[in-house]
């Protein structure tokens, strides 16, 4: 507060008839003219019009008030506009306060007298608070421009390539030993029926050859500190016992005596204790499964090491903690699927030839356990198949929502079998169907033409599978039971395992479904609740490959646009601050800060706000029991004055 009372200029806007018709502006003007309350009061037709702004500017330059109060429309409409005008007249933008007499009085109060009185109260409140305003100045900060991408599926890969192409250094952190994510486990991408591995192959090699991209595989993110433009990401790389010099020649595979179920094949196929994820993977290097390897169990075997032409086997490899700095983090952790075995009645795991969709994708995959040959347990190709839609979805027990993409995948499953065995009988047992847009819909029609029976049931939940001599009987109350060789359960899409943990590490919010919550569902679907943490692919919500890639591109693009080498980033102006002389270091503000912007300075024994992270919500100011935390532009004094103004206007 300055010693001498600041001079206040008050502008009243008629807003055409919008305000003038409902509020007696003459009376308002009279109420605030003279009496020391204001320096001058000026009524204009349309303040936001070029003429209005020009007049305002003139009045400001002539009278040089310290503070400007504008009684007009909602600040959400024109706060920026008028901040510009006053700034243009050499007055700090924070020395302008709007009184929203249009939306809050003129338009909502029938009685003109009442409307006028309310307008007077609102203006009075604005006056009372505005004289206490302090200048605010835009603040900027140097920023890092590199990216860390969590997840090396198609979305992560796409984002990495895009950022790298813009010259940014990118680090991909992948939990598997090689990139590829879910798409690499898929044979084809519907409805275009593009070969998924073929989509990936060129991108994988591009990644391998790109100097700007570093891949840390067999690794996970253990901690993330910082904020947009300045993140520290801690990564733990698990030992793989094979050096990067390995090119994946597979020479060691033959000599490895240990055969085990392959996770890549979801247990349907096998691999050796030393293996790569798939042929031609990036990174190419194989890895040793320590739990299964005889060398580690009893030291009895050394076969791979002896046979390796590149001396790449390294039994002494250790887990390693790596710290990476970046300006932004892109989350591309993909999705999981509902566990079919959890679904009652559908006998997954108990009845032969009942598969979940991911399992079927492996079976159908040319890089799968059977080289892409769709077959039953007995090795014969299925003559008939039933796909159960929404398996475990739309239920309180399993996935409560519609994933929106499984119907397409279900149809694709039929198509895959149809291609291999054109006369196979295919049933699609469903309640509701979701096919978005012309391509998907056309694909659905094609299935019907090709003879797929779309069987509608209202009793999805009570579908029951039973092993019969001639196959698996699929029955529910309301359709003719069918007996088929193979049943595929179209399971719903869930957040991938570890999402909760990662969200905690990132301090980011999740939505009800457990996916990462978007900063704004419409305006900013690729932003998380944390500035500088982006969402690409399925981690925000289930989507098809095309959307996943689009999101990846959008996320990378937004990050690239925000973080430009040599350019500073603008920071929130209305942040909060802590008065060092008053702070007792009671720490209570630290817990309430939604952005972890407050930390405890052990030397000074006080709390400190990192104004680069602070978004100015003011919760700390409302919390501080010692009156040390202060929210710029919303200080206790200003708000108290506003209250007084409203009540005594």
């Amino acid at each position: 507060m300055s010693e001498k009372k600041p001079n206040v200029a008050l502008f009243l806007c008629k807003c055409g008839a919008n305000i003038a018709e409902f509020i007696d502006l003459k009376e308002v003007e009279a109420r605030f003219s003279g009496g020391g309350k204001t320096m001058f009061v000026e009524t204009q037709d349309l303040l936001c019009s070029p003429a209005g702004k020009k007049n305002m500017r003139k009045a400001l330059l002539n009278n040089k008030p310290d503070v400007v109060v504008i009684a007009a429309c909602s600040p959400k409409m024109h706060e920026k506009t008028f901040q510009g005008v006053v700034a243009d007249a050499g007055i700090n933008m924070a020395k302008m306060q709007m009184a929203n007499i249009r939306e809050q009085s003129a338009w909502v109060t029938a009685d003109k007298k009442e409307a006028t009185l309310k307008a007077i109260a609102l203006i009075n409140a604005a006056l009372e608070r505005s004289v206490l305003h302090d200048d605010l100045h835009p603040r900027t900060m140097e920023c890092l421009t590199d990216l860390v991408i969590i997840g090396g599926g198609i979305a992560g890969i796409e984002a990495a390539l895009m950022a790298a192409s813009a010259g940014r250094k990118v680090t991909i952190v992948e939990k598997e030993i090689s990139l590829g994510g879910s798409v690499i486990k898929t044979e084809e991408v519907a409805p275009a029926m593009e070969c998924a591995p073929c989509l990936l192959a060129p991108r994988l090699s591009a990644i391998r050859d790109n100097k700007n991209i570093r891949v840390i595989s067999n690794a996970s993110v253990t901690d993330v500190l910082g904020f947009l433009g300045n993140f520290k990401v801690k990564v733990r790389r698990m030992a793989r016992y094979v050096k990067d010099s390995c090119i994946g020649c597979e020479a060691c595979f033959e000599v490895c005596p240990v055969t085990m179920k392959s996770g890549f094949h979801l247990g349907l196929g096998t691999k050796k204790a030393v293996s790569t994820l798939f042929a031609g993977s990036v990174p190419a290097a194989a890895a040793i499964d320590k739990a299964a390897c005889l060398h580690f169990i009893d030291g009895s075997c050394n076969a791979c090491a002896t046979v390796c032409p590149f001396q790449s086997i390294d039994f002494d490899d250790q887990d390693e903690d790596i710290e990476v700095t970046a300006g932004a983090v892109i989350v591309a952790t993909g999705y999981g699927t509902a566990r079919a075995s959890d679904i009652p009645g559908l006998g997954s795991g108990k009845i032969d030839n009942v598969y979940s969709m991911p399992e079927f994708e492996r079976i159908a995959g040319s890089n799968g356990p059977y080289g892409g040959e769709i077959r039953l347990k007995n090795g014969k190709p299925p003559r008939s198949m039933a796909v159960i839609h929404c398996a475990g979805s739309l239920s309180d027990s399993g996935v409560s929502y519609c994933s929106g993409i499984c119907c397409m995948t279900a149809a694709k499953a039929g198509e895959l079998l149809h291609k291999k065995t054109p006369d196979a009988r295919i049933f699609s047992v469903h309640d509701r169907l979701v096919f978005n847009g012309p391509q998907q819909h056309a694909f659905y029609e094609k299935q019907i033409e090709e003879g797929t029976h779309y069987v509608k049931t209202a009793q999805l939940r009570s579908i029951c599978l039973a092993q019969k001599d001639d196959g698996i009987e699929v029955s529910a109350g309301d359709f003719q039971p069918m007996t088929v060789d193979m049943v595929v359960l179209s399971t719903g899409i869930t957040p991938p395992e570890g999402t909760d943990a990662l969200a905690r590490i990132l301090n980011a919010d999740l939505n009800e479904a457990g996916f990462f919550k978007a900063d704004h569902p419409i305006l900013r679907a690729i932003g998380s609740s944390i500035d500088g943490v982006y969402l690409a692919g399925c981690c925000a919500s289930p989507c098809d490959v095309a959307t996943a890639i689009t999101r990846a591109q959008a996320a990378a693009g937004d990050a690239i646009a925000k973080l430009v080498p040599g350019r500073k980033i603008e920071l929130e102006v209305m942040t909060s601050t802590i008065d060092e002389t008053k702070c007792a270091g009671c720490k209570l503000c630290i817990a309430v800060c939604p952005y972890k912007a407050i930390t405890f300075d052990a030397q000074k024994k006080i709390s400190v706000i990192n104004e680069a992270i602070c978004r100015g919500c003011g919760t700390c100011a409302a919390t501080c029991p010692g009156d040390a935390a202060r929210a710029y532009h919303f200080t206790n004094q200003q708000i108290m004055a506003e209250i007084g103004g409203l009540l005594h206007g």
Partner: protein
Amino acid sequence: MDDFNPTIIAFVCNWCSYAGADKAGGQKLQYPSNVKLLRVMCSGRVDPQFVMRAFRDGADGVMVLGCHPGDCHYRNGNMKALRRFRLFERMLSQMGIEKGRFKLDWVSAGEAKRFQETATEMTDAVKKLGPLHLRGMVEREVA
């Protein structure tokens, strides 16, 4: 007392409730002029001191309006407000201030109608309760 014309202060968060009020304005939804708005960035910014000051300075009722749970622009400021005012309300009732005079509620940016209804209901409720007369108390016996 039909002629009793209460004053009600509503602390509204910038992102949801203030916008909701703007929308009510845009749709010309009429509500009692007794309700006067005060903008804060987040319902989590509303310090119980503000509410007490409003009562002391002559408000007959006070509302704090924020985003619906889960929709807070600042993640969970509204939940902090909820917890705070849960405790605060118990103190208020000890101080003899009736429940109906204070209200914490959620109004989203889209809920113009809900804003109108909330404002109207609050005004009716406070009208029924009559003047708070807190200043009557503060007008002390001491000269």
